[in-house]
């Protein structure tokens, strides 16, 4: 039993397939756990970054009290939410009220099965990858709708109705934009197309172009349509009519409190990361570093593999600057020490990444080289996703909320015709170019 488990553990190392395709359930489980923990940590970080960035957009400081620069604020928030009383309204539909947050959470986390962090850094590579992602992420709205209905109260119900109408409208434009990107995988001398997430990125690698720039400006337009629709899909500002706090108190989750409410928040951020990952995979070359065909070879590979270390080094530098600039009053002694330790931790991670980059610089089949490659893939993928996550915050700070009739008008009369036109033009151009 033990030896066979160890055997299952080691035999996967060096496999070019994702664990789901290699048939290795142990590693699939490990990947699932890594992704689950990683997403939870990223959501905590996003919580802090969003509050800080929004505050700075509005010329405020944001959280400053809990930890240096409010770094421990998300942990304090999480503790508060867990300790809060869990209220279920008397007139609520208890079972549905209880299940609703879980629906959203499960739908948001299930799509991570097919997100390709690298050519083998995914839980599984499905033949229908992108279809699966769109389908399961569209189930997330069921969580919102059931939550709004089960609360048995007016504001949540209106929020749920708005949300379901919005999702159905924007899914159409989103789907058509995705189809035009899928068309691109099959055109232009590559033979057959694919729906697999890994296959889509590999198609971009083979064709030597991100689909964002393919058939300029068709790819760009499809990308913009998707980028707008994905904000609407995740119910984020300026499309956050389902939880419009100036009109509906808190919309669909008005009656939720404590841990259940935090599940909604977790699901929302997980869904944001997931849709950003779709956009990155379809149009921005997924795990590929910039210009993978022009800047290849061992020297460039080595330079690009230094970036993860440099990123953590820069973060460590910021932490060091923060430590130095901390007021030298005895009140700040603990905060200062804490920030210094945090800086050391970041510097240690940076050092570790540099060591891996140097050890694995020879592109051979050694463990270090494979590890270095894996870190590179995940790093470039996450960097692109991070840009989208920042954009989500930027939108929220910049634009006022849509009115509902404007929302419907934009969805059906602007985005749907444009995405349909782009789809037809992509097909025509594809046929004539190849």
């Amino acid at each position, binding site marked *: 039993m033990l030896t066979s488990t160890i055997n299952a553990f080691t035999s996967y190392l060096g496999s070019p397939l994702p664990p789901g395709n*290699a048939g290795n*359930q142990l590693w699939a489980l490990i990947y699932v756990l890594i992704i689950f923990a990683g997403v939870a940590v990223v959501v905590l970080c996003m919580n802090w970054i969003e509050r800080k960035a929004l505050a700075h957009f509005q010329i405020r400081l944001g959280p400053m009290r809990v930890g240096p620069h409010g770094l421990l604020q998300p942990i304090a928030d999480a503790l508060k939410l867990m300790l809060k009383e869990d209220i279920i309204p008397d007139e609520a539909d208890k079972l549905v009220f209880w299940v609703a947050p879980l629906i959203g959470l499960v739908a948001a986390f299930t799509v991570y099965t097919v997100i390709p962090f690298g050519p083998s850094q995914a839980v599984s590579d499905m033949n229908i990858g992108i279809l699966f992602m769109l389908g399961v992420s569209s*189930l997330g709205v*069921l969580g919102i709708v059931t939550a709004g209905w089960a609360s048995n109260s007016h504001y949540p119900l209106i929020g749920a109705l708005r949300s379901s109408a919005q999702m159905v409208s924007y899914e159409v434009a989103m789907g058509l934009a995705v189809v035009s990107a899928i068309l691109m995988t099959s055109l232009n001398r590559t033979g057959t197309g694919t729906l697999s997430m890994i296959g889509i990125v590999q198609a971009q690698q083979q064709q030597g172009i991100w689909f964002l720039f393919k058939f300029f400006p068709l790819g760009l337009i499809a990308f913009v349509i998707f980028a707008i629709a994905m904000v609407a899909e995740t119910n984020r500002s300026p499309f956050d009519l389902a939880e419009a706090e100036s009109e509906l108190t808190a919309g669909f989750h008005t009656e939720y409190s404590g841990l259940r409410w935090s599940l909604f928040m977790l699901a929302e951020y997980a869904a944001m990361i997931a849709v950003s990952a779709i956009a990155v995979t379809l149009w921005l070359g997924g795990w590929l570093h910039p210009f993978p065909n022009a800047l290849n070879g061992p020297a460039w590979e080595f330079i690009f593999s230094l970036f993860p270390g440099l990123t953590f080094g820069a973060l460590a530098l910021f932490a060091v600057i923060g430590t130095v600039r901390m007021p030298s009053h005895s009140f700040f002694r603990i905060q200062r020490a804490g920030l210094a330790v945090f800086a050391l931790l970041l510097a240690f991670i940076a050092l570790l990444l540099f060591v891996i980059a140097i050890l694995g610089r020879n592109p051979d089949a050694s463990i270090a080289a494979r590890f270095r490659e894996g870190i590179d893939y995940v790093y470039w993928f996450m960097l692109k996703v991070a840009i989208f996550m920042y954009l989500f915050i930027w939108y929220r700070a910049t634009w006022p909320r849509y009115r509902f009739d404007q929302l419907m008008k934009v969805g059906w009369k602007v985005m749907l015709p444009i995405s349909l036109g782009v789809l037809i033009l992509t097909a025509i151009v594809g046929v004539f170019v190849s």
Partner: protein
Amino acid sequence: MNPALVIPALAHPSRMAAAFIDSAPNPAAPIATPWFFYGLAAAAVISGLLVITRRNAVHSALSLIVTLLSVAGLYLMLYAPFVAGVQIIVYAGGIMVLFLFVIMLVNIERVSKERQFNRIWPVGLLASCALLALFMSAIQKGKSLFLDRMVQLPEGTNTQQIAAALYGETGKMGQYTFAFEIASLLLLVAILGAVIMTKKKI
């Protein structure tokens, strides 16, 4: 459907235990076990019963979603991932959200006091029993038509095969191209009809 047809692993009860540990990279080996089939089938049947027995329409709709998802799981077991994906997108994600949208506008208090079944339910029971008997006899009589184990379908090219059947390969029309186009024309007419009926002035 006879479970033995669907699941070749039924003949090897040890396979499920072995699959967890067995690390031999053999992507063709079926991971879906009988237990998946029994679980999904039970979920589909139980939630299907809940759809017609719940008084609350929203509960019925939610049960229907569970049924549809279980059926999608069964499609996955039959090596038809594309059909499963479409089932989730179209039914569970699209149509059921619209269903819920409409049901929420209905006054559930009043509806739940109304009588749920009308008086002809014995007729319905009889009809469904007859249908069940028909299915059973079809399975019994046509046993020789079924293979004793499942054909290993190429899962990796499932989507491409469906596309070839619907649209045809290069230079030749697919088997179902004509029927597919007629169906899409019919849907277009239905959409236009719905728009015209709701709009008083175009």
